Protein backbone atom coordinates (compact mmCIF):
# COMPACT_ATOMS: atom_id res chain seq x y z
CA UNK A 1 0.00 0.00 0.00
CA UNK A 2 2.64 2.46 1.03
CA UNK A 3 5.19 3.96 -1.20
CA UNK A 4 8.09 3.20 1.11
CA UNK A 5 10.76 4.78 -0.94
CA UNK A 6 9.31 8.23 -1.25
CA UNK A 7 10.72 10.92 1.02
CA UNK A 8 8.22 12.99 2.99
CA UNK A 9 9.91 16.28 2.33
CA UNK A 10 9.62 18.25 -0.84
CA UNK A 11 6.94 18.37 -3.47
CA UNK A 12 4.84 16.04 -5.53
CA UNK A 13 5.28 16.09 -9.33
CA UNK A 14 2.21 18.38 -9.39
CA UNK A 15 4.23 20.88 -7.21
CA UNK A 16 1.99 20.48 -4.13
CA UNK A 17 4.12 20.43 -0.96
CA UNK A 18 4.01 17.16 0.97
CA UNK A 19 4.00 19.09 4.24
CA UNK A 20 0.72 20.71 3.21
CA UNK A 21 -0.93 17.36 2.54
CA UNK A 22 0.41 16.02 5.84
CA UNK A 23 -1.00 19.00 7.68
CA UNK A 24 -4.34 18.56 5.92
CA UNK A 25 -4.55 14.91 7.01
CA UNK A 26 -3.21 15.45 10.53
CA UNK A 27 -5.51 18.39 11.28
CA UNK A 28 -8.56 17.13 9.34
CA UNK A 29 -8.13 20.32 7.34
CA UNK A 30 -9.71 21.50 4.13
CA UNK A 31 -7.64 21.24 0.94
CA UNK A 32 -5.88 24.40 -0.16
CA UNK A 33 -6.97 23.80 -3.73
CA UNK A 34 -10.03 21.50 -3.81
CA UNK A 35 -10.37 21.53 -7.58
CA UNK A 36 -6.79 20.41 -8.09
CA UNK A 37 -6.99 17.75 -5.40
CA UNK A 38 -10.18 16.33 -6.85
CA UNK A 39 -8.45 15.45 -10.09
CA UNK A 40 -4.72 15.13 -9.35
CA UNK A 41 -3.64 11.46 -9.16
CA UNK A 42 -0.46 12.31 -7.20
CA UNK A 43 -2.36 14.21 -4.52
CA UNK A 44 -5.09 11.57 -4.32
CA UNK A 45 -2.68 8.69 -3.99
CA UNK A 46 -0.61 10.47 -1.37
CA UNK A 47 -3.66 11.54 0.61
CA UNK A 48 -4.97 7.98 0.57
CA UNK A 49 -1.71 6.67 1.97
CA UNK A 50 -1.40 9.37 4.62
CA UNK A 51 -5.02 8.97 5.74
CA UNK A 52 -4.52 5.26 6.22
CA UNK A 53 -1.29 5.82 8.15
CA UNK A 54 -2.81 8.52 10.36
CA UNK A 55 -6.08 6.76 11.10
CA UNK A 56 -4.70 5.01 14.22
CA UNK A 57 -3.30 8.34 15.39
CA UNK A 58 -6.73 9.91 15.23
CA UNK A 59 -8.18 6.92 17.04
CA UNK A 60 -5.57 7.26 19.77
CA UNK A 61 -6.37 10.96 20.09
CA UNK A 62 -10.07 10.19 20.47
CA UNK A 63 -9.48 7.72 23.28
CA UNK A 64 -10.83 9.22 26.52
CA UNK A 65 -8.17 9.46 29.21
CA UNK A 66 -9.14 10.00 32.82
CA UNK A 67 -6.86 10.93 35.66
CA UNK A 68 -6.45 8.26 38.34
CA UNK A 69 -8.99 8.83 41.15
CA UNK A 70 -6.25 9.35 43.76
CA UNK A 71 -4.72 12.30 41.90
CA UNK A 72 -7.20 14.85 43.17
CA UNK A 73 -6.83 13.72 46.79
CA UNK A 74 -3.06 13.78 46.59
CA UNK A 75 -2.97 17.26 45.10
CA UNK A 76 -5.34 18.72 47.69
CA UNK A 77 -3.52 17.00 50.58
CA UNK A 78 -0.29 18.51 49.38
CA UNK A 79 -1.85 21.95 49.11
CA UNK A 80 -3.36 21.76 52.57
CA UNK A 81 0.10 20.98 53.93
CA UNK A 82 1.58 23.91 52.05
CA UNK A 83 -0.95 26.31 53.48
CA UNK A 84 -0.38 25.42 57.11
CA UNK A 85 1.77 28.53 57.28
CA UNK A 86 4.76 26.85 58.84
CA UNK A 87 3.06 25.86 62.06
CA UNK A 88 3.48 22.16 61.48
CA UNK A 89 6.36 20.00 60.37
CA UNK A 90 5.54 16.97 58.27
CA UNK A 91 7.05 13.80 59.69
CA UNK A 92 5.68 11.29 57.22
CA UNK A 93 2.81 10.82 54.92
CA UNK A 94 1.57 9.62 51.60
CA UNK A 95 -1.78 8.39 50.39
CA UNK A 96 -2.84 6.77 53.64
CA UNK A 97 -2.53 9.80 55.93
CA UNK A 98 -0.04 12.33 57.15
CA UNK A 99 1.84 12.71 60.45
CA UNK A 100 2.59 16.28 61.41
CA UNK A 101 3.94 17.86 64.54
CA UNK A 102 3.16 21.38 65.69
CA UNK A 103 6.11 23.73 65.94
CA UNK A 104 5.48 24.41 69.63
CA UNK A 105 5.97 20.70 70.30
CA UNK A 106 9.35 20.91 68.60
CA UNK A 107 10.05 24.00 70.71
CA UNK A 108 9.46 22.01 73.92
CA UNK A 109 11.85 19.28 72.78
CA UNK A 110 14.44 21.89 71.83
CA UNK A 111 14.18 23.78 75.14
CA UNK A 112 14.49 20.62 77.23
CA UNK A 113 17.50 19.50 75.23
CA UNK A 114 19.16 22.89 75.63
CA UNK A 115 18.43 23.03 79.37
CA UNK A 116 20.26 19.72 79.86
CA UNK A 117 23.53 21.14 78.56
CA UNK A 118 25.95 21.90 81.45
CA UNK A 119 26.43 25.65 81.73
CA UNK A 120 22.90 26.50 80.71
CA UNK A 121 20.98 27.97 83.65
CA UNK A 122 17.64 27.92 81.93
CA UNK A 123 15.95 28.42 78.60
CA UNK A 124 13.31 31.02 77.99
CA UNK A 125 10.24 30.24 76.03
CA UNK A 126 6.50 30.49 76.00
CA UNK A 127 4.51 27.44 76.84
CA UNK A 128 1.47 26.52 74.82
CA UNK A 129 0.35 27.02 71.30
CA UNK A 130 1.32 30.31 69.77
CA UNK A 131 2.79 31.58 66.58
CA UNK A 132 5.93 32.85 68.28
CA UNK A 133 7.32 29.53 69.42
CA UNK A 134 10.74 30.31 68.02
CA UNK A 135 10.46 27.39 65.63
CA UNK A 136 9.81 27.56 61.92
CA UNK A 137 8.90 24.49 59.89
CA UNK A 138 8.51 23.75 56.22
CA UNK A 139 7.92 20.15 55.29
CA UNK A 140 10.56 18.22 57.22
CA UNK A 141 12.98 21.12 57.63
CA UNK A 142 13.04 22.97 60.93
CA UNK A 143 14.70 26.16 62.08
CA UNK A 144 14.94 26.78 65.83
CA UNK A 145 15.63 29.95 67.77
CA UNK A 146 16.42 29.67 71.48
CA UNK A 147 16.86 32.27 74.19
CA UNK A 148 19.28 30.95 76.74
CA UNK A 149 20.46 32.15 80.13
CA UNK A 150 23.98 30.84 80.87
CA UNK A 151 25.89 30.52 84.12
CA UNK A 152 28.61 33.11 84.46
CA UNK A 153 32.21 32.62 83.43
CA UNK A 154 31.97 30.34 80.44
CA UNK A 155 33.09 30.33 76.85
CA UNK A 156 29.73 31.30 75.40
CA UNK A 157 30.81 30.48 71.88
CA UNK A 158 31.59 26.91 72.86
CA UNK A 159 28.44 26.66 74.95
CA UNK A 160 26.40 27.87 72.00
CA UNK A 161 27.92 25.17 69.85
CA UNK A 162 27.13 22.49 72.44
CA UNK A 163 23.54 23.68 72.69
CA UNK A 164 23.23 23.67 68.95
CA UNK A 165 24.47 20.10 68.64
CA UNK A 166 22.38 18.77 71.50
CA UNK A 167 19.19 20.43 70.27
CA UNK A 168 19.65 19.37 66.67
CA UNK A 169 20.42 15.80 67.72
CA UNK A 170 17.47 15.50 70.07
CA UNK A 171 14.89 17.03 67.69
CA UNK A 172 16.17 14.83 64.91
CA UNK A 173 16.02 11.75 67.12
CA UNK A 174 12.49 12.35 68.40
CA UNK A 175 10.82 13.71 65.26
CA UNK A 176 12.97 12.77 62.29
CA UNK A 177 12.95 16.40 61.20
CA UNK A 178 16.08 17.88 59.72
CA UNK A 179 17.22 20.78 61.85
CA UNK A 180 18.79 23.14 59.39
CA UNK A 181 19.56 25.98 61.82
CA UNK A 182 19.69 26.52 65.57
CA UNK A 183 20.13 30.14 66.56
CA UNK A 184 21.23 30.49 70.15
CA UNK A 185 20.70 33.87 71.73
CA UNK A 186 22.28 34.39 75.15
CA UNK A 187 19.99 36.89 76.81
CA UNK A 188 21.46 36.88 80.31
CA UNK A 189 24.08 35.34 82.56
CA UNK A 190 23.69 34.31 86.17
CA UNK A 191 26.56 34.90 88.63
CA UNK A 192 26.29 31.35 89.94
CA UNK A 193 24.06 28.44 89.04
CA UNK A 194 22.44 28.63 92.49
CA UNK A 195 21.06 32.14 92.12
Amino acid at each position, binding site marked *: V*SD*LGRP*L*EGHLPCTVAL*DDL*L*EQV*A*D*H*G*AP*ADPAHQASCPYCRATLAE*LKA*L*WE*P*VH*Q*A*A*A*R*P*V*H*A*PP*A*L*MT*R*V*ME*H*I*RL*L*TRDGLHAVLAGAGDGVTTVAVWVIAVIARRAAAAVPGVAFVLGKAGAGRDSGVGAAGRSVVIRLEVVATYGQDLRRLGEQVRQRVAGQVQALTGCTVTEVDVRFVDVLPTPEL
Partner: protein
Amino acid sequence: VNPAAPGADVGDTQAGSASDHGRRPTAGHGRQPLSASEGVADEALVLWAREGHQEAFEELVRRHRDRAYRVALRLLGDPHLAEDVAQEALVAAWRALPRFRREARFSTWLYRIVTNTALNYSTRRREVATEVVELPETGQGAPADLVAEHNREVARIEAVIAQLPLEQRAALVLRSFEQCTYEEVAEILGITVPAVKGRLHRARRELTERLREGP
Protein backbone atom coordinates in the same frame (compact mmCIF):
# COMPACT_ATOMS: atom_id res chain seq x y z
CA VAL B 1 -5.07 28.38 8.49
CA ASN B 2 -6.42 26.70 11.57
CA PRO B 3 -9.01 24.25 10.41
CA ALA B 4 -9.47 22.25 13.57
CA ALA B 5 -11.15 24.51 16.03
CA PRO B 6 -10.44 23.83 19.69
CA GLY B 7 -13.43 23.00 21.75
CA ALA B 8 -13.99 19.45 20.60
CA ASP B 9 -12.42 18.54 23.88
CA VAL B 10 -11.52 14.92 23.69
CA GLY B 11 -11.71 13.14 26.98
CA ASP B 12 -13.11 15.75 29.29
CA THR B 13 -16.49 14.20 29.57
CA GLN B 14 -16.92 14.33 33.31
CA ALA B 15 -19.38 16.52 35.09
CA GLY B 16 -18.34 20.09 35.31
CA SER B 17 -16.21 20.05 32.23
CA ALA B 18 -18.65 22.07 30.22
CA SER B 19 -17.10 25.18 31.65
CA ASP B 20 -13.66 23.76 31.07
CA HIS B 21 -12.57 26.70 29.02
CA GLY B 22 -14.23 29.23 31.19
CA ARG B 23 -16.10 30.43 28.17
CA ARG B 24 -19.52 29.36 29.17
CA PRO B 25 -21.49 32.49 29.88
CA THR B 26 -22.31 32.92 33.52
CA ALA B 27 -24.68 35.81 33.01
CA GLY B 28 -28.09 35.02 34.39
CA HIS B 29 -26.75 32.37 36.74
CA GLY B 30 -25.70 34.90 39.29
CA ARG B 31 -22.92 34.13 41.71
CA GLN B 32 -23.44 30.63 42.97
CA PRO B 33 -21.96 28.89 45.95
CA LEU B 34 -19.03 26.63 45.14
CA SER B 35 -21.07 23.54 45.84
CA ALA B 36 -23.01 24.28 42.68
CA SER B 37 -19.97 25.48 40.85
CA GLU B 38 -20.52 24.19 37.34
CA GLY B 39 -21.77 27.56 36.19
CA VAL B 40 -18.79 29.42 37.64
CA ALA B 41 -16.16 30.36 35.08
CA ASP B 42 -12.57 29.28 35.56
CA GLU B 43 -11.55 32.92 35.82
CA ALA B 44 -13.69 33.49 38.89
CA LEU B 45 -12.36 30.34 40.52
CA VAL B 46 -8.80 31.47 39.83
CA LEU B 47 -9.47 34.81 41.50
CA TRP B 48 -10.91 33.13 44.58
CA ALA B 49 -8.11 30.58 44.67
CA ARG B 50 -5.56 33.38 44.54
CA GLU B 51 -7.07 34.75 47.70
CA GLY B 52 -6.38 31.42 49.32
CA HIS B 53 -9.72 29.65 48.94
CA GLN B 54 -8.79 26.02 48.57
CA GLU B 55 -12.33 25.00 47.58
CA ALA B 56 -12.05 27.17 44.49
CA PHE B 57 -8.78 25.56 43.53
CA GLU B 58 -10.21 22.14 44.24
CA GLU B 59 -12.92 22.83 41.68
CA LEU B 60 -10.26 23.89 39.16
CA VAL B 61 -8.37 20.66 39.81
CA ARG B 62 -11.59 18.70 39.35
CA ARG B 63 -12.18 20.34 35.99
CA HIS B 64 -8.66 20.12 34.68
CA ARG B 65 -7.13 16.98 36.22
CA ASP B 66 -7.93 14.81 33.18
CA ARG B 67 -6.30 17.35 30.92
CA ALA B 68 -3.17 17.53 33.08
CA TYR B 69 -2.86 13.77 33.34
CA ARG B 70 -3.63 13.17 29.66
CA VAL B 71 -0.94 15.54 28.40
CA ALA B 72 1.62 14.14 30.80
CA LEU B 73 0.73 10.61 29.73
CA ARG B 74 1.08 11.40 26.05
CA LEU B 75 4.32 13.26 26.53
CA LEU B 76 5.90 10.57 28.69
CA GLY B 77 4.12 7.36 27.68
CA ASP B 78 4.15 6.08 31.27
CA PRO B 79 1.03 6.14 33.49
CA HIS B 80 2.91 6.23 36.82
CA LEU B 81 5.24 8.99 35.71
CA ALA B 82 2.27 10.85 34.24
CA GLU B 83 0.46 10.75 37.57
CA ASP B 84 3.51 12.12 39.38
CA VAL B 85 3.95 14.86 36.80
CA ALA B 86 0.27 15.82 36.86
CA GLN B 87 0.39 16.05 40.65
CA GLU B 88 3.56 18.10 40.67
CA ALA B 89 2.18 20.42 38.00
CA LEU B 90 -1.13 21.01 39.79
CA VAL B 91 0.64 21.80 43.05
CA ALA B 92 3.01 24.08 41.13
CA ALA B 93 -0.04 25.80 39.65
CA TRP B 94 -1.36 26.51 43.15
CA ARG B 95 1.97 28.00 44.13
CA ALA B 96 2.18 30.06 40.97
CA LEU B 97 -1.36 31.45 41.17
CA PRO B 98 -0.12 34.91 42.21
CA ARG B 99 1.74 35.11 38.90
CA PHE B 100 -1.28 34.12 36.82
CA ARG B 101 -2.13 36.86 34.33
CA ARG B 102 -5.78 37.74 34.23
CA GLU B 103 -5.95 37.81 30.44
CA ALA B 104 -4.62 34.26 30.17
CA ARG B 105 -6.81 31.20 30.08
CA PHE B 106 -6.37 28.79 32.94
CA SER B 107 -6.30 25.77 30.63
CA THR B 108 -3.52 27.25 28.47
CA TRP B 109 -1.57 28.26 31.54
CA LEU B 110 -1.92 24.78 33.03
CA TYR B 111 -0.84 23.17 29.75
CA ARG B 112 2.30 25.23 29.99
CA ILE B 113 3.07 24.10 33.53
CA VAL B 114 2.32 20.45 32.79
CA THR B 115 4.39 20.51 29.60
CA ASN B 116 7.36 22.09 31.32
CA THR B 117 7.15 19.67 34.22
CA ALA B 118 6.90 16.70 31.87
CA LEU B 119 9.80 17.88 29.73
CA ASN B 120 11.92 18.41 32.84
CA TYR B 121 11.14 14.88 33.99
CA SER B 122 11.91 13.53 30.58
CA THR B 123 15.26 15.30 30.43
CA ARG B 124 16.17 14.26 33.95
CA ARG B 125 15.30 10.67 33.22
CA ARG B 126 17.30 10.63 30.03
CA GLU B 127 20.34 11.78 31.91
CA VAL B 128 20.05 8.76 34.19
CA ALA B 129 19.54 6.11 31.57
CA THR B 130 18.78 5.87 27.92
CA GLU B 131 15.33 4.44 27.89
CA VAL B 132 14.15 1.88 25.43
CA VAL B 133 10.45 2.08 24.75
CA GLU B 134 9.17 -1.39 24.07
CA LEU B 135 6.72 -1.60 21.24
CA PRO B 136 3.75 -3.68 22.31
CA GLU B 137 3.34 -6.99 20.59
CA THR B 138 0.97 -7.05 17.70
CA GLY B 139 0.03 -10.60 16.92
CA GLN B 140 -0.16 -11.64 13.30
CA GLY B 141 -3.15 -13.92 13.66
CA ALA B 142 -6.63 -12.48 13.28
CA PRO B 143 -7.54 -11.16 16.75
CA ALA B 144 -10.89 -12.34 17.99
CA ASP B 145 -11.18 -9.40 20.35
CA LEU B 146 -11.50 -6.16 18.44
CA VAL B 147 -11.27 -4.06 21.61
CA ALA B 148 -7.95 -5.62 22.51
CA GLU B 149 -6.75 -5.00 19.00
CA HIS B 150 -7.83 -1.37 19.23
CA ASN B 151 -6.06 -0.95 22.55
CA ARG B 152 -2.90 -2.49 21.15
CA GLU B 153 -3.02 -0.10 18.24
CA VAL B 154 -3.48 2.89 20.54
CA ALA B 155 -0.61 1.67 22.72
CA ARG B 156 1.54 1.32 19.63
CA ILE B 157 0.82 4.88 18.56
CA GLU B 158 1.53 6.20 22.05
CA ALA B 159 4.82 4.31 22.13
CA VAL B 160 5.81 5.69 18.73
CA ILE B 161 4.97 9.23 19.85
CA ALA B 162 6.97 8.77 23.04
CA GLN B 163 10.00 8.12 20.83
CA LEU B 164 9.80 11.39 18.95
CA PRO B 165 12.31 14.10 19.91
CA LEU B 166 11.03 16.09 22.89
CA GLU B 167 10.28 19.39 21.22
CA GLN B 168 8.49 17.75 18.30
CA ARG B 169 6.52 15.54 20.66
CA ALA B 170 5.27 18.48 22.71
CA ALA B 171 4.06 20.39 19.66
CA LEU B 172 2.40 17.32 18.17
CA VAL B 173 0.63 16.28 21.37
CA LEU B 174 -0.73 19.77 21.94
CA ARG B 175 -1.87 20.21 18.36
CA SER B 176 -3.04 16.79 17.21
CA PHE B 177 -4.17 15.34 20.54
CA GLU B 178 -5.26 18.35 22.55
CA GLN B 179 -6.57 20.28 19.53
CA CYS B 180 -4.83 23.49 20.58
CA THR B 181 -4.55 26.25 17.98
CA TYR B 182 -1.12 27.19 16.64
CA GLU B 183 -1.28 30.36 18.73
CA GLU B 184 -2.01 28.38 21.87
CA VAL B 185 0.81 25.93 21.19
CA ALA B 186 3.14 28.89 20.70
CA GLU B 187 2.04 30.41 24.00
CA ILE B 188 2.35 27.11 25.87
CA LEU B 189 5.80 26.31 24.52
CA GLY B 190 7.01 29.92 24.66
CA ILE B 191 7.98 30.01 20.99
CA THR B 192 6.71 31.82 17.90
CA VAL B 193 3.91 30.57 15.64
CA PRO B 194 6.31 29.98 12.71
CA ALA B 195 8.53 27.95 15.05
CA VAL B 196 5.48 25.90 16.05
CA LYS B 197 4.70 25.24 12.40
CA GLY B 198 8.28 24.16 11.77
CA ARG B 199 8.22 21.75 14.70
CA LEU B 200 4.88 20.36 13.63
CA HIS B 201 6.09 19.75 10.09
CA ARG B 202 9.08 17.86 11.41
CA ALA B 203 6.98 15.96 13.94
CA ARG B 204 4.41 14.90 11.34
CA ARG B 205 7.10 13.74 8.91
CA GLU B 206 8.91 11.86 11.65
CA LEU B 207 5.73 10.22 12.91
CA THR B 208 4.60 9.29 9.40
CA GLU B 209 7.99 7.71 8.69
CA ARG B 210 7.70 5.61 11.81
CA LEU B 211 4.14 4.65 11.00
CA ARG B 212 5.27 3.54 7.54
CA GLU B 213 7.76 1.22 9.15
CA GLY B 214 4.75 -0.60 10.54
CA PRO B 215 4.27 -2.47 13.77
